[in-house]
């Protein structure tokens, strides 16, 4: 008689050598049952079950911890933002102010910057959090990300005093500058009552200044994202893991049941089999998470850096979460298998997966509803599209299993006609258990669909951003709008610093009554005006623009026709002195810039040196910045979907491998005739890789169709055909890898197989 390799036999033969005979009392029996389960789990096929459980535990704990850490990071961020938020003095009580505090926006590249002008008015006042002292006049403290954002930003706001500490920043990527303006009378022009402050630490969310961090959404939205894109796929993986290699376990439980083992003992045997694998996954996840918490990791796609101190603040939650995952998964493993088997015998019987036809209809219905929603647009159209797409993606794997059944039958018939045993076995298996393919396609095709839709959604924001970038890169960077307080008094210094030939000014048109629409006058030297178009002559006195210019350059058209660079329509143009008086909000500069980003930086530097609270803008910039900010937020989808895709891929691959290897056990007698890997790899290829390639192609088509419908919905966006093809190749390769691995394992089992009749 050969040694038993089957887990059923291991369990059945264990009592003779196990501590069962010496067990005393309830605790002893508990330990014995756990030990029997643990030993049984080490039998053939147990490796895949253990790997599945460990993988599920790892990803489940990781997902839970990401959610917990997101809450902690959010709370820590809010805490720091509250601490730095200024507390304004009471209305009219400016005398009690200890400092002045005034925030203005700026930009670096496609990101917003918060520039905080501050000045201590009462000596001994503690500086804002993150600063070890108040900045001197003409000095600026910058956040580390702002220093690193672009060359020259260090000197943009004044002399560089140092970087802002973590206590003064919401997060690592925030772009903030604390500036003490060089002009002594700067704050005389700042009339906002909120600029008089009596300290810091204001919890009022309304007064929070514009933050430039990259995820301004509530933590509830992040929770929803994690639930949909990571937790649900993890749940799918858990379901696959707890039932992987279930046939062997069911037979063992049936045997224990036949021997009269009570439910408690069977539950303990199951727990004994699973707990170490689950604990391995949990411990690994704890180690990874703890190691991550010691660093300040930068997330992929978003480039968002999470501070180690924030992650460490979430570590106290880790033991509780780990224990929850361990207990829940062990419990789930027990509950999934503990039911009393309906079969009374322990002999293996054929299992059938009945795939009803209704998912087919549901899939087509989902597509139809999505198509209707895409055409109909509006609110109900969008709802229809989302509902239809979800239904189609859920029903697709079930339709795939029906397709697999048909495919399997055809394959077996073809193999039979050709006398090919590989195709006969692979085809019959596929027809008998199409769920293998359904699971793989559920994992990979749904993943493809999610990635495609995510890509379209992302590009709906990045598309306009790219267009806006094109617009201002085409000619807008050559013309910079600068606005500030009290321009008549400060213009001379600014103009001299840049060179008068580069600066145009616009000012309120004199003589306009309060009832009339406000207009402005554009003034500047001839050299500057020539940049706007061909002139009949250099107007020494104010003339309408159409009388001055015979033909406009694109820049001139942008200034004189589009009108989004000046605060009111231009009524006249001249080389004369700029008028003063009128509405101060209508004043501004248009600066000609022929030096790109370095020139822009010089303009900003001069503005911060000579003007009061300057704000610069480029054509299309506000739209571009808004779009870029939204695009940055949608990239979070990809970050979170990464966990979900990993869970789906693991669920599909492990589930399919489990079923294949369970089937491969039945090949035992045939393994007496063939032990070569090629034979078993051939079966795995026909049973897994080739059908998966076919289903993958169909899934890619469906994903492309849904992506197209989403684009048609009206918000634009685009999807990349190469990305879809890469997805298809990944699906096919995944099938090939699983097939190769399964073929190798089946061949190894074949060599080790021995008849066990005695």
């Amino acid at each position, binding site marked *: *008689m050969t040694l038993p390799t089957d887990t059923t036999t291991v369990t059945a033969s264990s009592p003779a050598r196990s501590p069962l005979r010496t067990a005393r009392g309830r605790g002893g029996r508990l330990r014995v049952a756990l030990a029997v389960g643990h030993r049984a789990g080490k039998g053939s096929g147990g490796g895949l079950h253990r790997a599945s459980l460990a993988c599920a535990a790892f990803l489940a704990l990781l997902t839970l911890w990401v959610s917990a850490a997101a809450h902690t990071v959010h709370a820590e961020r809010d805490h720091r933002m509250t601490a730095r938020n200024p507390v304004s003095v009471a209305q009219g009580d400016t005398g009690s102010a200890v400092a002045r505090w005034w925030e203005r926006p700026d930009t670096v590249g496609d990101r917003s910057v918060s520039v905080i002008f501050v000045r201590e008015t009462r000596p001994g006042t503690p500086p804002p959090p993150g600063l070890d002292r108040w900045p001197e006049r003409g000095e600026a403290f910058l956040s580390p990300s702002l220093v690193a954002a672009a060359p020259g930003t260090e000197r943009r706001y004044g002399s560089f005093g140092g970087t802002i500490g973590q206590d003064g920043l919401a997060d690592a990527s925030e772009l903030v500058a604390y500036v003490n303006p060089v002009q002594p009378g700067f704050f005389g022009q700042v009339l906002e009552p909120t600029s008089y402050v009596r300290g810091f630490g204001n919890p009022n969310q309304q007064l929070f200044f514009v933050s430039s961090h990259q995820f301004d959404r509530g933590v509830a939205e992040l929770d929803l994202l994690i639930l949909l894109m990571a937790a649900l796929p993890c749940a799918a993986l858990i379901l696959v893991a707890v039932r992987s290699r279930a046939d062997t376990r069911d037979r063992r439980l049936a045997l224990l049941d036949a021997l009269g083992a009570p439910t408690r003992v069977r539950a303990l045997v199951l727990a004994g089999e699973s707990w170490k694998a689950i604990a391995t996954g949990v411990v690994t996840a704890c180690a990874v998470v703890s190691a991550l918490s010691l660093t300040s990791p930068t997330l992929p796609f978003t480039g968002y850096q999470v501070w180690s101190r924030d992650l460490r603040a979430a570590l106290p939650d880790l033991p509780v979460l780990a224990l929850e995952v361990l207990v829940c998964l062990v419990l789930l493993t027990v509950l999934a298998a503990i039911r009393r088997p309906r079969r009374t015998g322990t002999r293996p*019987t054929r299992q059938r997966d009945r795939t009803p036809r209704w998912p087919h209809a549901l899939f087509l219905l989902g597509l139809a509803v999505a198509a209707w929603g895409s055409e109909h647009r509006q609110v109900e159209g969008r709802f229809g599209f989302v509902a239809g797409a979800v239904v189609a993606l859920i029903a697709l794997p079930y339709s795939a299993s029906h397709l697999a059944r048909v495919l399997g039958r055809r394959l077996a018939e073809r193999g039979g006609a050709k*006398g090919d*045993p590989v195709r006969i076995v692979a085809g019959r*298996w596929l027809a008998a258990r199409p769920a293998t393919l359904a699971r793989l396609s559920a994992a990979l095709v749904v993943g493809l669909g999610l990635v495609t839709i995510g890509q379209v959604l992302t590009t709906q924001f990045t598309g306009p951003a790219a267009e806006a970038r094109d617009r201002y890169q085409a000619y807008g960077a050559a013309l910079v709008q600068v606005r500030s307080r009290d321009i008549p008094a400060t213009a001379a210094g600014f103009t001299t610093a840049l060179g008068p030939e580069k600066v145009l000014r616009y000012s309120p048109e004199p003589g306009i009554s309060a009832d009339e629409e406000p207009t402005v006058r554009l003034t500047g030297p001839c050299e500057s005006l020539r940049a706007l178009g061909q002139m009949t002559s250099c107007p020494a006195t104010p003339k309408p623009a159409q009388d001055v210019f015979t033909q406009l350059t694109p820049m001139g058209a942008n200034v004189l026709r589009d009108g989004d660079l000046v605060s009111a329509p231009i009524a006249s143009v001249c080389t004369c002195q700029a008028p003063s008086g009128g509405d101060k909000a209508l004043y501004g500069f248009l600066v000609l810039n022929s030096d790109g980003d370095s020139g822009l930086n010089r303009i900003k530097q001069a503005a911060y040196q000579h003007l009061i609270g300057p704000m610069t803008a480029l054509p299309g910039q506000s739209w571009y910045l808004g779009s870029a900010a939204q695009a940055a937020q949608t990239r979070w989808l990809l970050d979170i979907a990464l966990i979900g895709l990993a869970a789906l891929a693991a669920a599909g691959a492990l589930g399919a491998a489990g079923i294949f290897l369970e089937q491969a056990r039945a090949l035992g007698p045939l393994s007496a005739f063939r032990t070569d890997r090629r034979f078993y790899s051939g079966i795995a290829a026909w049973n897994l890789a080739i059908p998966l390639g076919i289903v993958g192609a169909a899934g890619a088509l469906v994903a492309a169709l849904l992506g197209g419908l989403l684009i048609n919905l009206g918000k634009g966006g685009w999807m990349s055909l190469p990305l879809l093809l890469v997805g298809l190749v990944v699906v096919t390769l995944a099938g090939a890898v699983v097939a190769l691995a399964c073929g190798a394992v089946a061949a190894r089992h074949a060599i080790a197989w021995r008849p066990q009749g005695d």
Partner: protein
Amino acid sequence: MPPTPSGVHARDLHYTIAGRVILNSLTLHVDRGESVAVTGPSGCGKSTLLSCLAGLTSPDRGTVTIDGQDVTALAPGRRAAVRLSTIGMVYQFGELLPELSPLENVALPALMAGAPASETYARAESLLDDLGVASVIGTDCGSLSGGERQRVAVARALIGKPRVILADEPTGALDGETSDNVADLLFALPASHGCALVVVTHNPAVAARADRVLAVRDGRLHPVHESNGAVNQR
């Protein structure tokens, strides 16, 4: 008696596992057209002997010759090829592939050996007919009775026209009448198909049908009786 070139011949087989001697200088000769039943208590080494004869287990020492070819000297892949072309095996539970039809199960080893499909299916149908299970050809393997399953398994063992048939407790899972039917069928094979038959069994009634009955004791084979009642001297 010198070994004959046909049939199955084991000489001086030794097999030890975990310090326990399973086979100890065991010798067995079974010619084509002859049947031998191997009996003995559980754990005495009957199935190990059968595995050694089939080339599934390599003995520590000794040789196994199948139809004149020393299988112990072959690599595992070649041994599998010898099994495919020379040996038919029958197991306690039939060990059919449940997803395949009985006809496909029977045809599979021959197709694996590269036999033409049409010829193989015709022979498989003929064998199933001969063994009295023609009616189950198109049915589901999961619905076969124990006796039907074993008959299909015997047909599968015969599809490759083997020179040796090895059966491991072929009636162990069957009730009395079905067991008798399957045993009658098996022990008729040496005469009808000209092959050597080695049957491992616990059942004395089944063993009694063999030309010779041998018992494994202390790792060796000991004659029990011949079918005519005389003690076996070989």
